[in-house]
């Protein structure tokens, strides 16, 4: 038996064993929920009568009906590279402001339908995120701006150009407002525009600003750049509020790196150790080995204290700093010092003073050139908060002739957006190139909509020496024009942007002698790979200027160790981010990795605050509160968040959009409006002037955390610490035994079943809980790949979300809790563990035996098959599933006006273009669940058969595993000794039996004791903690 005596809980209601929770947990389906939207008394109305009449009529006439005439319409001239039903893949790049991912776009019949990571990219290395995965749907947004508009009236491009060009040339000063531009050719196009127009300035800001870092680099190193970080090279990582696995700068890249340092085996048990000091529980904090909740007002002092601790060790000068006691800080300092050259300290603060000290700390630790690099500077954030702040003032003063908003939305996502909204009218000319309507575009005179990135040509330079290209994967769906081309046009240059871009590459890499040979060949290769590397760019690491006293002094005055007031920490959610993609229903319905809430933002508070204010939250039912920040007041729901630092509250950005479109408009509240930029940078930590007053109004947050709970079954997640693991590789494992005739057996040794034989393939999935960061990229990837319906907030509240793969987030605490006080202790700073959960494809599947119509069966390759056209919807299978992974279609979610506002991919003609043609769209009344991407397995097998060869490991992969930026999921054939999954699990000899003996000590089955024998294996989570802290 395992010695781990922790209590695991998904939500506070589970910890206290609330009777309502127990009632729900015991049932697969929530009870007595209305199936009809109206008609609350439940009686049949006249309408129902007519419907029934209609049904009988339809049934009666069924026999007489003829199948409809269907057309088969071939091309007139078939493009050579498009074969119906055969997918084509194109390398491209996802960029949104400074957020970057190199991707491969899968197209079918000329329609992009799926985005995967590009494994050739040295930056994102094949990883994606939820936002990147979902971006393919925004292409098919029917509400994108349909063409050029002047003052709300649609015009033609030639008329638009004539009108605007003359206005611009007589406007005087022209300001181009933009988010970070990663594209060298775009910058060149803007320069060409500036040259013609004269008096043009480009002002850059970022919705989620990291101006603090670039500013600090300028102060400390004399070069205003953002360093590249290498988390894989760090043995000790300390983060002060930087959510680098979720939302900070380049999370895909960092997740890839981070997970490399966290993969362990018996042969190599080295693992990085991660300390996190933060106020809100972030995704990164949830993955940390040691997490300390701190107040935002203490964060600057904590950084200073760490500097002083290290400086003392280094014998360097310490700085004056108010004394502060922070748990784990001196331990972190000891370990950082012991790992000089392989240590990394980062901070999420946007305060340049704090970032200067962070630079100094990394300098002491010799991180530059090892775990971070300023020489290979990253270009992800170039925003200048101070300049942007000034621009708003200038606009307000009426001194600006023309303002062009290049693919940005500052009215919504800049701290002084409200002021800006009024100031735009004071410019004589205002232009937006946004592809979709937003708060800024709604205020301007000229709309010159840009292409979607999947329709565009562009190049990018995310880091020194690294380039990538994006190419159109579909013809423009609307009458849009690439913004760069528009700029060139207004500047009187009539070159198409594609030619301009190609010429720029020819000039930069060819004429300069960087590359020799045939240009076309070079270009084709770059386009094919999507990325291009230049080795001799960049200089050495810059020398530090070394003086931090001014910054230390500033920190000493602006941070306090003894603040007692409420502090607001504004953060970004993993799915919604800055809110630029908020109108995407896939992202809205993705549960937040930490709070498991969908379709909303909310004020996160600690359990202590809830106790003090008499708030008891139950399964999303909560109260609204009035949040007042320096005079601005908004009404926002409260969410009790375990791990929230006492005295702080958190609020997510990205909500409260007013002109986002049908999905996002009106959801949640806008946190940007509460931010302050008066100190020269946008401050995301509001430490003064915050009050929260609970009101009596009730509210429901659609949280999925307690849905699909295992009934009183423990040992679902298994974990240990690195110290224990090194002593015993099976540490933390629970080995259940079953009693039979005087002896105890391993459950798999006793079975009612004869067992399947898998003669050819035996598909399986190994999931490393140590690598899974919980980011949720897999859940959206699955949604895209398998045409999973979006059901909307009300149906999530009804516990009817459809996701095939969910990530169970468990908190753990040493004991359970019955009183409020105990609850407070348990929820103070719980450990967190993430577990991706999908159909386990059991070899002794409980669902298969109870289906009365044999709609769910077992395949000869180990898959549990679900046959929709045979299912009659008894739901017995879901009732009998111990893992709660089956989903029932309570409604017809496609072609249904009631769901048109959420389930856009299955309801309007354009949204439907994103559907995967190889996967059936399910109808009302049938059960569905993870198929282990059987369409991909079948396609892979067919390719091998056609080429008359065996399948090679890795050529078939499931959507979740492909998307995973931390390679936590490994799919393969457990019958193939060459496969990675076979080797990871150390499968004993090659047999065709369904029951594989596995020698890897960390591998376990969830609920092994019931011997359903899944084909999904999990690896124990190992925390890098000392033994005595387990």
């Amino acid at each position, binding site marked *: 038996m395992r010695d781990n005596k922790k209590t695991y809980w998904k939500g506070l209601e589970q910890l206290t064993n609330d009777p309502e929770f127990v009632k729900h947990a015991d049932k697969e389906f929530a009870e007595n929920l209305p199936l009809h939207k109206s008609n609350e008394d439940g009686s049949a109305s006249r309408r129902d009568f007519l419907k029934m009449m209609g049904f009988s009529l339809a049934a009666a006439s069924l026999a007489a009906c003829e199948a409809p005439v*269907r057309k*088969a*319409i*071939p091309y007139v001239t078939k493009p050579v590279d498009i074969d119906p039903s055969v997918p084509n893949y194109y390398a491209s790049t996802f960029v949104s402001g400074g957020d970057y991912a190199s991707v491969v776009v899968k197209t079918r019949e000329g329609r992009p339908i799926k985005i995967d990571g590009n494994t050739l990219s040295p930056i994102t290395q094949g990883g994606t995120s939820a936002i990147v995965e979902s971006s393919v749907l925004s292409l098919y947004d029917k509400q994108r701006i349909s063409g050029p508009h002047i003052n709300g009236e649609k015009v033609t491009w030639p008329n638009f150009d004539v009108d605007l060009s003359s206005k611009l040339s007589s406007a005087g000063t022209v300001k181009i407002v933009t988010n970070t531009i990663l594209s060298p050719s775009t910058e060149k196009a803007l320069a060409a525009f500036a040259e013609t127009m004269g008096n043009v300035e480009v002002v850059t800001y970022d919705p989620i600003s990291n101006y603090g870092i670039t500013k600090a680099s300028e102060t400390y190193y004399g070069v205003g750049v953002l360093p590249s970080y290498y988390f894989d090279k760090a043995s000790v990582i300390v983060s002060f509020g930087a959510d680098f696995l979720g939302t900070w700068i380049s999370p895909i890249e960092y997740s890839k790196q981070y997970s490399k340092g966290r993969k362990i085996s018996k042969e190599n048990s080295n693992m990085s150790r991660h300390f996190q000091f933060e106020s809100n529980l972030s995704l990164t904090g949830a993955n940390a080995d040691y997490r300390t909740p701190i107040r935002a007002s203490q964060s600057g002092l904590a950084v200073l204290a760490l500097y002083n601790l290290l400086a003392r060790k280094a014998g360097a000068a310490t700085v004056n700093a108010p004394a502060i006691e922070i748990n784990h800080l001196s331990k972190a300092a000891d370990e950082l010092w012991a790992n000089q050259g392989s240590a990394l300290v980062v901070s999420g603060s946007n305060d340049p003073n704090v970032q200067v000290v962070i630079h100094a700390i990394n300098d002491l630790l010799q991180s530059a050139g090892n775990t971070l690099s300023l020489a290979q500077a990253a270009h992800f954030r170039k925003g200048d908060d101070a300049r942007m702040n000034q621009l708003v003032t200038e606009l307000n003063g009426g001194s600006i002739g023309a303002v062009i908003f290049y693919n940005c939305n500052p009215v919504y996502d800049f701290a002084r957006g409200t002021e800006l909204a009024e100031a735009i009218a004071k410019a004589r000319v205002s232009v937006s190139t946004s592809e979709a309507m937003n708060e800024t575009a709604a205020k301007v005179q000229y709309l010159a909509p840009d292409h979607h990135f999947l329709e565009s040509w562009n190049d990018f330079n995310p880091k020194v020496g690294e380039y990538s290209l994006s190419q159109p994967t579909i013809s423009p769906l609307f009458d849009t024009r690439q913004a760069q081309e528009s700029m060139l046009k207004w500047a009187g240059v009539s070159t198409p942007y594609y030619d301009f871009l190609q010429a720029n590459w020819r000039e930069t890499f060819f004429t300069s002698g960087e590359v020799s040979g045939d240009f076309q060949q070079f270009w084709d290769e770059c386009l094919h790979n999507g990325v291009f590397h230049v080795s001799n760019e960049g200089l050495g690491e810059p020398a530090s200027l070394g003086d931090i006293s001014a910054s230390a002094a500033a920190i000493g005055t602006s941070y306090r160790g003894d603040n007692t007031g409420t502090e607001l920490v504004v953060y970004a959610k993993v799915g919604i981010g800055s809110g630029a993609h908020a109108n995407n229903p896939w992202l809205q319905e993705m549960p937040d990795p930490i709070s498991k809430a969908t379709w909303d933002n909310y004020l996160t508070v600690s359990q202590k605050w809830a106790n003090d204010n008499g708030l008891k939250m139950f399964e999303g039912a909560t109260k609204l509160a009035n949040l007042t920040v320096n005079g601005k007041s908004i009404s926002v729901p409260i969410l009790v968040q375990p791990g929230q630092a006492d005295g702080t509250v958190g609020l997510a950005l990205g909500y409260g959009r007013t002109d986002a479109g049908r999905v996002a408009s009106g959801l949640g509240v806008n946190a940007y409006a509460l931010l302050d930029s008066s100190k020269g940078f946008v401050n995301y930590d509001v430490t003064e002037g915050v009050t929260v007053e609970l009101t009596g109004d009730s509210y429901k947050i659609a949280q999925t955390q307690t849905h699909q709970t295992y009934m009183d079954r423990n040992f679902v997640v298994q974990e240990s610490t690195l110290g224990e693991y090194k002593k015993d590789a099976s540490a933390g494992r629970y080995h259940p035994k079953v009693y039979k005739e005087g002896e105890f057996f391993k459950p798999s040794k006793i079975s009612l079943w004869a067992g399947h034989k898998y003669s*050819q393939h035996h598909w399986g999935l190994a999931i490393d809980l140590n690598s899974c960061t919980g980011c949720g990229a897999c859940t959206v990837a699955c949604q895209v790949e398998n045409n999973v319906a979006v059901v909307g907030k009300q149906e999530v509240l009804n516990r009817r979300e459809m996701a095939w793969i969910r990530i169970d987030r468990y908190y753990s605490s040493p004991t359970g809790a019955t009183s409020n006080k105990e609850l407070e202790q348990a929820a103070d700073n719980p450990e967190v563990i993430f577990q991706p959960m999908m159909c386990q494809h059991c070899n002794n599947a409980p669902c298969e035996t109870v289906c009365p119509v044999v709609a769910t069966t077992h395949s000869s390759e180990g898959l549990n*098959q679900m046959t929709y*056209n045979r299912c009659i919807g008894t739901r017995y299978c879901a009732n009998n599933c111990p893992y709660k992974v089956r989903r029932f279609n309570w409604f017809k979610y496609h072609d249904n006006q009631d769901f048109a506002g959420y389930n856009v991919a299955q309801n309007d003609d354009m949204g439907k273009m994103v559907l995967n043609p190889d996967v059936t769209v399910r109808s009302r009344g049938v059960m569905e669940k993870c198929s282990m991407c059987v369409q991909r397995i079948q396609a892979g097998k067919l390719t091998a058969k056609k080429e008359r060869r065996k399948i090679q490991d890795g050529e078939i992969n499931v959507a979740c595993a492909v998307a995973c930026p931390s390679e936590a999921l490994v799919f393969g054939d457990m019958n193939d000794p060459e496969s990675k999954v076979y080797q990871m699990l150390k499968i004993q000899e090659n047999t065709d039996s369904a029951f594989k003996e596995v020698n890897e000590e960390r591998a376990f089955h969830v609920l092994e004791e019931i011997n359903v024998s899944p084909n999904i294996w999990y690896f124990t989570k190992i925390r890098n903690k000392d033994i005595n802290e387990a």
Partner: protein
Amino acid sequence: MSIKRSFLGVPIHLGTLLLAFFLVGGVDAYAVNPDVSDSEDAIQAGQALFNANCKTCHKLDQRYTGPALRGVTERRELDWAKQFIVNSQLLIQSGDAAAVALYREYNNIVMPSHDFLSDGDVMNLLSYIEYGDTAEAATEAGAVGEGGATGGGGVPSEYLTIMLVVLVFVLLLILVVLGLIVSVLTKYMNSSDKLDDEDKAFINQKGSVKKLLTSDGFIVIVTTIVLALVVKTAIDGIYGVGIQQGYAPAQPIAYSHQLHAGQYEIQCQYCHTGVEIGKSANIPSANICMNCHMHIQNVGGQEGISPEIAKLYDAYDNNRPIEWVRVHNLPDLAYFNHSQHVVVGGIECQTCHGPIEEMEVVYQHSALTMGWCIDCHRNTEIASQGNEYYDKLVLLHADSKDALKVKDIGGLECAKCHY
């Protein structure tokens, strides 16, 4: 009682005849033409020819697309059979009554000409037809017998019809004879005076039709029969919903497969380019048509542009796609991939699409029901030769007597086609 004996004699005699008829028809209804060799070599050579050219439409002992072939040399003149095999259309056009009748019977389906076969080839083919696969014949006939299905077994269908007519005739005859016996007996009994009144009343009672019609037994029987028929029709009707076998919609251009694939022998893949690549075989895009029709403007060297070809030019010149009517409609819930069947399985197009090269207007040859798919998956051998993918499966299957079939490697599983 000579009269009585003679009456009884008729049915007995007929019965004997009938029995003899059954024995002759069922067991050894024909004698093979002695010119057809029964040597093992000839049979084997014939089998190869049969598999290559005839198998798609013919079986030896079972009616299929074409008639069951065994016994053909007994039924027909040897020369006639040879002529029919080599070029049936020639024979039919010459007005040969037997050939025309056969052609009509099989829905005017044209059997392709086999003028490439030598006389020896045809004789070998006939050897196989008469003497090949007799074991198969026995099992097939048995299976048909057990299942109670119609279609002939070893007895050619025209004999079956004759036999049925004879049977009905015999039954009617028996009825008449019984009637006569009854009337003779009644007369005889009436003329006898040993009977009392009660017996006489019994003898002379008249059966009342009305009484019969209103009797419980009659009503129950009739109701049961009617109900059974209604249910059967309803079930047949429901099973038939969505099945479009024989569906031959009019197409926007009167394109003839008979002309292109039959007469000019253009390979299917030339136009249906996707058949070896992907799921869809592809209706050819207009540019493929134009490869030939750039030059060919009319049928058979006639002057001017044919009005049908003009439609193609119109579509091509105006970049307007041709809206063909889909003939083969699978439901969305079923996944079907042409390349799997054609490239991996090595299945001929005609196996599912029928004699496409003879179709003036394309019609749906197969039922395209799930049962039809599954039947084929049960019976079709895996084309595993030289395909490394199947090596392990072949090895594991080596112990089995039966060939490795699609069903043995999961070909009947739901998620092979439904996902």
